[in-house]
């Protein structure tokens, strides 16, 4: 496949991407773009970034051949263990890169938005490490369901601002961070948490998390002697998915599957599947697939996973969808939680609920893949994060914890 180099100079992935932001931010986006171009080819920057990834974040993350899970699913399952990174998710790669960029631009303050809190914790971590002031915007609803991560951010020295506008979730936290940035752009870098937003963010985030795919590709070749048949990842904004997909895009024989949050089921309308259940529009600075009503008003998303609960998706995923290079399908809350439990019980790994979507999706595609290939397929699953932050949600879902986080007696289960 002779794929074009994307994005183009104006930050477009085909008809997606671009910059749909107030003019006040253009100078900052241009400055960021210039800083990134120079950092990309600066051996010193790359050495510093690589050193932090290796010595601080703990990458390359392991590629683990999950034997018991493989037996259960009838495929060879390889788990890319991003959950073992420092702070427990792929997010640390992006924040270290962007925090270094902020320093390079001479900015002493970073702001971030967070849904599940993973990106907020990662941002607070990078800010502490690199001595930057950090303010994290978080929807009020999310501060309640992710109280532990709010505590972590505060321990790390960050200020957490609960956002009380709109649906009080991730999309509103993003709006609030953009507003802060409009007013503080001279001193502040907006440490955007996913491969979405105005150009050049989708490209920068993709490149910073792209090590996931580069590492996994080499590890897979070394472990199995071949590339995987399929790569699966969960897609909210889509940073972990683009991180693992990107290195495989030129490999025509490798199928790429993104799994969106199907929530209560597509038919209920309560979901966060922007590609499957959305349409083209402009949100948070880019043209992409979004959940919207007939008038172009954003529709509230729903997912059991706060990290996937976002009504848009990164523009590169929209492009991969339109070109057919990657497939995007929804996974319901229930399917994800079944997969969550399966991984706990077969491999002793508690995944983030986000990552459980990737696992549930893998389980769904395996039968058809096996039939098509006429053999047991090799499926690479991006285990993008660990489930510590989701223990409360999962505990309530499985009836292990009640609403007050009190343990339910075994005999009542």
């Amino acid at each position, binding site marked *: 496949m002779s794929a074009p180099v994307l994005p183009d100079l*104006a930050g477009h992935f085909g008809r997606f991407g*671009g*910059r*749909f*932001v*107030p*003019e*006040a931010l*253009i*100078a*900052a986006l241009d400055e960021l773009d210039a800083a990134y171009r120079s950092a990309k080819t600066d051996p010193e920057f790359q050495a510093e970034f690589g050193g932090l990834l290796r010595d601080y974040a703990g990458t390359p993350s392991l590629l683990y051949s999950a034997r018991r899970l493989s037996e259960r699913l009838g495929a060879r399952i390889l788990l890319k263990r991003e959950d073992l990174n420092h702070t427990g998710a792929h997010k640390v790669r992006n924040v270290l890169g962007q925090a270094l960029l902020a320093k390079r631009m001479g900015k002493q303050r970073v702001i971030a938005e967070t849904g599940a809190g993973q990106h907020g914790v990662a941002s607070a971590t990078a800010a502490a490490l690199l001595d930057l002031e950090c303010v994290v915007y978080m929807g009020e609803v999310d501060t309640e369901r992710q109280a532990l991560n709010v505590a972590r951010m505060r321990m790390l020295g960050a200020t957490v601002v609960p956002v009380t*506008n*709109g649906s009080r979730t991730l*999309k509103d936290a993003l*709006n609030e961070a*953009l*507003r802060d940035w*409009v*007013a*503080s*752009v*001279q001193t502040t870098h907006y440490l955007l948490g996913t491969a979405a937003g105005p150009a050049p963010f989708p490209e920068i985030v993709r490149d910073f998390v792209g090590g996931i795919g580069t590492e996994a590709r080499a590890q897979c070749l070394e472990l199995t002697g071949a590339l995987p048949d399929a790569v699966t990842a969960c897609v909210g904004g889509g940073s972990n998915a683009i991180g693992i997909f990107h290195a495989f895009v030129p490999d025509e024989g490798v199928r790429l599957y993104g799994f969106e949050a199907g929530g209560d089921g597509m038919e209920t309308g309560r979901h966060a599947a922007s590609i499957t259940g959305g349409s083209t*529009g*402009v*949100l*948070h*600075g880019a*043209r992409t697939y*979004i959940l*919207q009503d*007939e*008038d*172009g*008003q*954003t529709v509230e998303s729903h997912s059991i996973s706060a990290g996937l609960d976002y009504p848009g998706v990164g523009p590169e995923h929209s492009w991969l969808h339109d070109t057919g290079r990657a497939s995007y399908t929804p996974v319901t809350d229930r399917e994800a939680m079944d997969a969550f439990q399966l991984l706990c019980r077969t491999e002793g790994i508690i995944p983030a609920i986000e990552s459980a979507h990737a696992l549930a999706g893998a389980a769904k595609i395996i039968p058809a893949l096996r039939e098509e290939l006429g053999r047991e397929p090799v499926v690479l699953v991006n285990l993008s994060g660990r489930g510590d932050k989701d223990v409360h949600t999962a505990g309530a879902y499985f009836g292990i914890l009640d609403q007050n986080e009190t343990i339910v007696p075994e005999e009542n289960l």
Partner: protein
Amino acid sequence: MSLSGAFDKARAEGRPLIVGCMPAGFPTVDESVASMVAMVESGIDVIEVELPYSDPVMDGPVIQKASDIALANGVRTKDTFKIIEAVARTGATVVLMTYWNPVERYGVDAFARDLSAAGATGMITPDLIPDEADEWLAASDAYRLDRTFLVSPSSTDARIAMTLKACRGWVYATALMGVTGARDVVSSEASDLVRRIRAIDAEIPVGVGLGVRDGKQAAEVGAYADAVIVGSALIRRVLEAPDRAAGLTALRELGADLATGARSVTR
């Protein structure tokens, strides 16, 4: 009245235009029309109707709250056209301010057609820069609508020049780095920005917005700008009023204060 006619008239009187912003359908369709008509009657020259949007990143809390109320009360894009039509019918000059997604969703050409048919003179697009505006440039040409892009204190001279070239009718200069909302002091960045604009294009009328809350500030800004844009301060009067009648009275008071301020300008 056309916008250029309004600018000509104000220039002949040696004063700036006062532009007053109100979200369409806030708190209801009928009440928003009444508010806008009251604003015109009190001496505000141009009504900037804002199309309520779920994710208004350029707006501060006051405008967002008003937009949320309008949306919660079920206002639709089609209602916005009806409101524009009702206000324009009184002889007022009406422009629309809208984020881009509702336009794209409606269909850019169809939106321009219906906006023009409703009697608006043009459109202000806070999150659409000329770099991404090909469709809008074509549609606004086809329906002879003014197109107003924003320039900011952080804009380079090259970007200001490019933006002015894309604008028609007037340009919107954001007075400070920040979102909408009345402030105690209007930033000095605004006059610098207007100077930079004039150095590039001495002809295009310049509207300055963000932060003006009373007649005194309107006079300050009006000393160097062709139009003074007031939003949050007006909307707050309606939000904080105990009832509809009190809201209209408060709007008229502020409208008159702003108009007096504009007329006191000496330059």
